[in-house]
């Protein structure tokens, strides 16, 4: 698919030209994670218990807050209209856009997560499950967030509205994601939960773009 390649190329180029879009979600993640030990105390014993939960919740907030750059500038400069009038299959264009957004805002979090997890004293056997769960979970977050963003991009001051709309939808991902790490720490199998997350991802990949397209049509008109 030529259009998928072209869209990926375009989005990644834009992201690398305005590095804030990549760095800021990552920095938000890093700073917010560092706030927790300051808030709840630096006791190692204690930190390891909350490490996975804190990392997951913060990653979730970072992904949600990074959504703003997905459709906003396209909406404002009229590219979104052109996109909706494209004769190429919209489903794949949207998927490529969301995918590249995940690559620049979600993937760096996943890569950096183990560093901060071990700063929060997460035991070693929890590291790999954490990364695996984030790797499968954050794309779901990005897809769901994209639906919310598509719904609110036409509103002049969306701000925290997006948070109120999509945070509740994030709950299952959070529960299963932290569940994976929990099972690993309790020496239980993680395959089942990861498979469940995988199934959710497949569901999101197949349905979310349709919802996004519908939402974008509403926002543009």
């Amino acid at each position: 698919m030529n259009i998928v390649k072209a869209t990926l190329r375009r989005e990644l180029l834009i992201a690398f030209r305005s590095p804030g879009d990549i760095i800021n979600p990552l920095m938000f993640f890093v700073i917010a994670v560092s706030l927790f030990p300051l808030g709840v105390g630096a006791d190692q014993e204690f930190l390891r218990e909350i490490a996975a939960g804190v990392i997951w919740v913060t990653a979730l907030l970072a992904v949600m807050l990074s959504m703003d750059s997905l459709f906003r500038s396209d909406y404002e400069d009229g590219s979104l209209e052109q996109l909706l009038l494209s004769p190429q299959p919209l489903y794949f264009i949207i998927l490529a856009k969301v995918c590249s957004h995940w690559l620049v805002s979600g993937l760096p979090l996943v890569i950096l997560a183990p560093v901060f997890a071990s700063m929060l004293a997460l035991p070693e056997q929890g590291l790999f499950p954490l990364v695996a769960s984030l790797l499968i979970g954050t794309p779901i977050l990005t897809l769901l967030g994209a639906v919310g963003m598509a719904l609110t991009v036409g509103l002049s001051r969306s701000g925290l509205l997006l948070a109120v709309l999509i945070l509740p939808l994030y709950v299952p991902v959070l529960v299963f994601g932290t569940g994976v790490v929990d099972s690993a720490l309790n020496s239980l199998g993680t395959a089942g939960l990861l498979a469940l997350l995988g199934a959710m991802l497949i569901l999101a990949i197949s349905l979310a773009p349709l919802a996004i397209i519908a939402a974008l049509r509403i926002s543009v008109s």
Partner: protein
Amino acid sequence: MWQWLYKLTSPKWFYTISGQLMPWLVGLTTFLLGVGLIWGLAFTPPDYQMGENYRIAYIHVPAASIAMGCYYMMAIMAAAFLIWRIKMADMVAKACAPVGMTFTALALFTGSVWGIPTWGTWWIWDARLTSTLIMMFLFIGVMALRSAYDSETAGGKACAVLSLVGVVNVPIIKYSVEWWNTLHQGASSLSLSNTAANPPEIWMPAFFVGFGLFGFYLIAIILRTRNEILIRERKAEWVGEVLSATLLVNQGEV
């Protein structure tokens, strides 16, 4: 004295003087760093407690203190820019952020690496570590703000305001974090080995590396500031001459 300070605010004077000073500075820095590093790495006896790994101190300690100094320098330059509108001050402040960030990163990295054998973990939420980490965030924040502005002057002013707000906060952060930590866990278990109590063979190389690294810090700031001068003053006649001279030289290779 005042005249000299006044001269410092002239980009042209800074450019020429720093250009003349550079070879000396580079020579001195290479000498100090070279002697210090070789001495420290190979010729000082091992520490009776930590063995060989205390050699990390030769870079860790100066890196940390220069990084902190860099933040204060950035804030002073910010004040000079906001109050007296000295353009040179903004150029130096702009150079301070990335240099300070890399030095903070160096202190963090060497400290963490050192922590693995000595503390058994590469990170604890100790007061000094935490405040160093936050200083790194402050540097990154300043850089992010500047890159978000299209206009050079507006970006400079905004960064100056942020640096000053930050510098008011730095002591508060340091104090608060120190206070916070002692309540939760004893800092005594982490007390860092005291260089003053050690024999001169151990701390002499530290002086060499310390001053050498400081020299390097100056070089890094000066290099960036010189670039900035060329870019911002490109319409000045003397810069035009410098540019066309270097362009002529470079045309061959480009």
